[in-house]
């Protein structure tokens, strides 16, 4: 399953092997507390990071008083991938960069499969599909490092300048290996040549475990400055034949040109010797290669078709043989030059012993076999058996992770390849490489996309995506790209996405908005409503009532909004002073009129309107305003939703209207209505559950008098 490495307290990365074993690896957690430790507690933090809290026994006893130790500590353990070669920031850059190629490929996959509709997955023999996969692979590859990796040793000028290119990474090397074997079907014809290039780019990585041709060249280059007569140093010849064996022709030719015989003062005495050196250099640079093209820097002659290549190869071999048998060797005085050059000729002629001597790791020997012993190898044929043979010839106690990956690939064992990817390069690699693997064969496609009961009904491919998404969600800067991968998981992705979104913090508005936006994108309305609910309650409880109501409204949380209106309603009923009016007016506004859900809300709205017009009346003296206020009073009193306990406060508040000097504002029937209400109220007072409003005792009587007066005036008026 998920293969992990972890970053424990001391920051060291420990590879976490997933091999079956009896006892699991035990990692230390450095908490830096003085023993004893009393208690441990664990909790999952974001994604798959685990928080371990360590508590010391409480101080306070005899000794604890003075030790000044902290009471506990929380250590976060990351159960992620982690390639020590790549920094966190670089990882995030890769994670972000790979989203777009991945998403593009997924959308192409779905459009292709909807077009064909024959099978769930695009046919691996669909030409267009190859092009998509290789485009995807190139995009990812360019993310992993500069597109133009320069090989380490380039001997630029006679006094040896080592030009350092961008440091190659194993991740990129591994990706290219996958690309060569699974994605790039066009270059299958000249697979060996691609491997030659691959080794040229990444041989330096292999030096970490054992000596390589690269490391030998680097070593020699350091000595080069000190050497007076270069051709007398056996290492010069050794290094050159090694480089020749693995096909670094440009390096060899460049080094040959450092030969002492080229120097002007010696040219005359060493004419023959120089001629031989130059002849070998020319032969090397004319080496026929079965490939469509070569880098400008690299040497050799390219042949696209095999017949042409075979013809050229035989001609070239004949030239070498001719040179090998020529009489000039006798005339060459310098023994080193003579032997060195002839050894190089033997390498070119495919002498197995010479090749064996010239190479250091089996992969180098393997490459040299392709170059000089089996130049006509095309495609995948017998590559694995040759690899096994080379491994036997150059046994090694342990292999570099790239080599293990290569062995898996050559063995055509998808499980091994996946396991190596996952163990050595982490979940990112697996998820993205699966696209290449499945492009390789239908069998792999079935293996990776078959739903398995043992995994709870998901495929291996989906499992890896889920694991990767979890890794992404463990970091605050990457969780937002996890949805892309989760939505590509048909079976379990959405549920995990819901959990991920729901567990984001609501305390920061920006994050909250982003979270809601993601919900909208994936049509997860119920999740966004839960999130908004949580946000609403959070703000409400933290004294920001406005925001609270806003978010609860967004969540359409009728239950809580009702409760809030109820609260408001209750508090409004208790005291109806102008100050409290100000307090709740805004919330009424915010609760809005459109939400019909709240019981007393409609009333509160009308009540607010009434209060407002009443305020206008008290400000100015216009009869129009007063008439309007009187009308809203009647509306309120008529409305059955107006609770009884508000009747008296309402009437008492509008005493001024009832006693309006210029003219009676209420007509007879209106006044009668109010009087009836007043009567009803007097009856209700007799009931035990009646709540006496917080008004002066004379309130009722003064309202009654005002109404009676008004009635009289209204009758007169009519």
């Amino acid at each position, binding site marked *: 399953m998920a293969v992990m490495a972890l970053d424990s307290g001391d920051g060291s990365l420990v590879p976490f092997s997933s091999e079956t074993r009896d006892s699991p690896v035990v990692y230390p957690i450095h908490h830096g507390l003085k023993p004893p430790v009393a208690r441990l507690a664990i909790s999952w933090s974001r994604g798959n990071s685990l928080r371990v809290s360590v508590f010391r026994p409480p101080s306070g006893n005899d000794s604890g008083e003075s030790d000044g130790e902290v009471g506990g500590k929380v250590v976060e353990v990351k159960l992620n991938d982690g390639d020590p070669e790549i920094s966190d920031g670089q990882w995030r850059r890769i994670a972000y960069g790979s989203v777009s190629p991945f998403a593009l490929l997924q959308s192409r996959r779905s459009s292709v499969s909807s077009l064909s509709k024959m099978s769930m997955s695009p046919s691996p023999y669909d030409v267009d599909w190859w092009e998509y996969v290789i485009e995807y692979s190139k995009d990812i590859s360019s993310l992993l490092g500069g597109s133009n990796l320069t090989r380490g040793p380039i001997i630029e000028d006679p006094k040896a300048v080592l030009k350092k290119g961008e440091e190659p990474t194993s991740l990129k090397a591994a990706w290219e290996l996958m690309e060569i074997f699974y994605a790039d079907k066009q270059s299958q014809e000249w697979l060996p040549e691609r491997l030659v290039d691959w080794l040229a780019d990444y041989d330096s990585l292999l030096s970490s475990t054992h000596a390589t041709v690269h490391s030998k060249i680097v070593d020699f280059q350091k000595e080069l400055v000190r050497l007076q007569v270069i051709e007398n140093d056996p290492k010069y010849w050794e290094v050159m034949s090694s480089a020749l064996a693995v096909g670094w022709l440009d390096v060899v030719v460049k080094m040959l040109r450092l030969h002492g015989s080229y120097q002007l003062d010696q040219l005359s005495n060493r004419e023959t010797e120089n001629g031989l050196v130059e002849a070998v250099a020319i032969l090397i640079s004319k080496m026929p290669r079965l490939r469509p093209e070569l880098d400008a820097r690299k040497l050799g002659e390219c042949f696209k078709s095999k017949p042409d290549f075979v013809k050229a190869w035989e001609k070239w071999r004949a030239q070498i043989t001719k040179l090998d048998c020529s009489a000039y060797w006798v005339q060459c005085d310098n023994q080193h030059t003579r032997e060195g050059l002839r050894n190089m000729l033997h390498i070119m002629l495919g002498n197995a012993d010479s090749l064996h001597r010239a190479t250091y790791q089996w992969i180098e020997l393997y490459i040299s076999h392709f170059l000089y012993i089996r130049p006509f190898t095309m495609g995948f044929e017998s590559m694995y058996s040759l690899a096994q043979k080379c491994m036997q010839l150059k046994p090694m106690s342990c292999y570099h992770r790239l080599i293990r990956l290569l062995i898996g690939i050559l063995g055509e064992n998808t499980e091994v390849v996946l396991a190596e990817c996952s163990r050595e390069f982490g979940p990112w690699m697996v998820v993205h490489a699966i696209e290449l693997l499945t492009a390789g064969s239908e069998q792999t496609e079935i293996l990776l996309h078959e739903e398995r009961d043992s995994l709870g009904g998901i495929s291996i491919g989906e499992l890896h995506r889920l694991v990767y998404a979890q890794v992404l969600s463990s970091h605050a800067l990457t969780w937002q790209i996890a949805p892309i991968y989760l939505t590509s998981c048909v079976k379990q992705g959405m549920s995990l996405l819901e959990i991920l979104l729901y567990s984001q913090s609501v305390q920061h508005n920006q994050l909250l908005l982003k979270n809601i936006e993601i919900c909208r994108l994936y049509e997860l309305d119920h999740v966004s409503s839960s999130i908004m609910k949580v946000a609403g309650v959070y703000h409400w409880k933290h*004294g920001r009532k406005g925001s609270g109501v806003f978010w609860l409204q967004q969540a359409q949380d009728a239950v809580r909004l009702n409760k809030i209106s109820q609260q408001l309603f209750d508090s409004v009923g208790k005291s109806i002073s102008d100050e409290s009016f100000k307090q709740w007016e805004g919330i009424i506004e915010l609760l809005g009129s459109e939400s019909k859900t709240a019981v007393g809300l409609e009333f509160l709205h009308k009540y607010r309107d009434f209060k407002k017009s009443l305020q206008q009346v008290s400000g100015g003296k216009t009869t129009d305003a007063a008439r309007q206020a009187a009308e809203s009073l009647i509306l309120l009193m008529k409305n059955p939703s107006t609770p009884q306990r508000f009747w008296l406060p309402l009437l008492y508040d509008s005493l001024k209207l009832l006693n309006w000097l210029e003219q009676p504002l209420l007509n007879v029937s209106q006044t009668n209505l109010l009087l009836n209400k007043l009567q009803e109220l007097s009856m209700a007072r007799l009931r035990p559950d009646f709540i006496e409003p917080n008004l002066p005792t004379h309130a009722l009587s003064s309202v009654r008098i005002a109404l009676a007066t008004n009635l009289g005036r209204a009758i007169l008026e009519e």
Partner: protein
Amino acid sequence: MAKSVNVWDCGSTLYDSFELKSFKRQLDSAILASTRTLSMPHLPDRRVPLPPTQQQPHPQQQATSFNIPKKSSKISRSLHKLLRSVFKPNKSSGSFFPVKDQTKDGFYVVYDKSGSVLSTIPEVPTFEIAKLSPEISSSVHEGSILKIVWVPPEYGDAVACICVDGSVSLWEEVAEDAQPVQWKMCKSFKNSSKVLDIQFGISMTRLKLVAAYSDGHVKVYELLDPLELNNWQLQAEYQNVTESVPSFGKALCFSASISWNPQQGESQDSSIVVGFNSNTSELNSSKFKSETALTRYGSLIRLIKDGFQWQSWLHLEKKDDQVYAVKWAPNIGRPFEVIAVATSKGIAIWQLGLNPDQDGRLSAEKVALLSGHEGEVWQMEWDMSGMTLATTGRDGMVRLWQANLNGVWQEQAAFELTS
């Protein structure tokens, strides 16, 4: 898909400025409409600067230390009584609550409110401890805190605090109008028998609280008002959780564990799993093995299904196993549920069929019995996908368990403390 690519870039223009601006405008207009009132402050401008896209050095290790104030106090009796801290599940904002024993008989709350932006847990400001202790210590009386349980976030930032003496109090973080944030006790449950564990869950749009008592009862309370945590109603009581109460003496359980099915929609049925442990040497010694009444009482675990028509109790473990902890795994799409049960024999992984058979019984199968921890298992936590189980216990180890590609459960890693 391809089009939305830019959206996902951290520093992308669309996501972080355009979308945000439109939202903010909408928000502001709503808030502005109500600024006239005093009680309606603007949305606090707590927005944090956008995280830089990349390359920002992030501390790999995030550790925080809690400074427990050095105050003279009584000696803590025992270590294991000390503290059990339970972290808020499901919230990656990662608020967490260390619980402090004895020193002042209180607990303090540590937040990682940085949630969105940072990966570091800020140092605990000492004032927070100083401020909280008096309030809480006055009410959390004698004895230490056994456990802290978070309330689901839809009901505010609140915890339930179980004390060793068996009382439970509910604490809530609130800020009244202009006052600073404070923790307020909103409810205290007292009972003749001790509360051993409680867990919150949402069922039928209501917040429920399930409590397990030392006499083997399980009670279910319901919150009446979703905005006030002080009004709880006893909804159900199950006395027969531990059937066959011994004929002599009073039944006593020493620890209990409850776990809700994490997949609880507000409108769905929910289930819980309960485990009890009456772990004393007398009860479990061979001497008493024959005394069926006692040994059978040892522990058992049951399952409640279908909302609160609590049906079909299902035994997952034999009655005489001591169940230390139970934990229901999140299910993101498996056709079965997974429950981890820690007993004295090891950690059992149970698979539960989702559909009951004709008799209304659920099928359950023990797919693994994992041994590794020596002694009691204190705590088990599933990760967000329900694929990894983290456990810790008396042996001081943290262990991680996963199923491999063949569905075989195994220990994936272990962590040992070193100072």
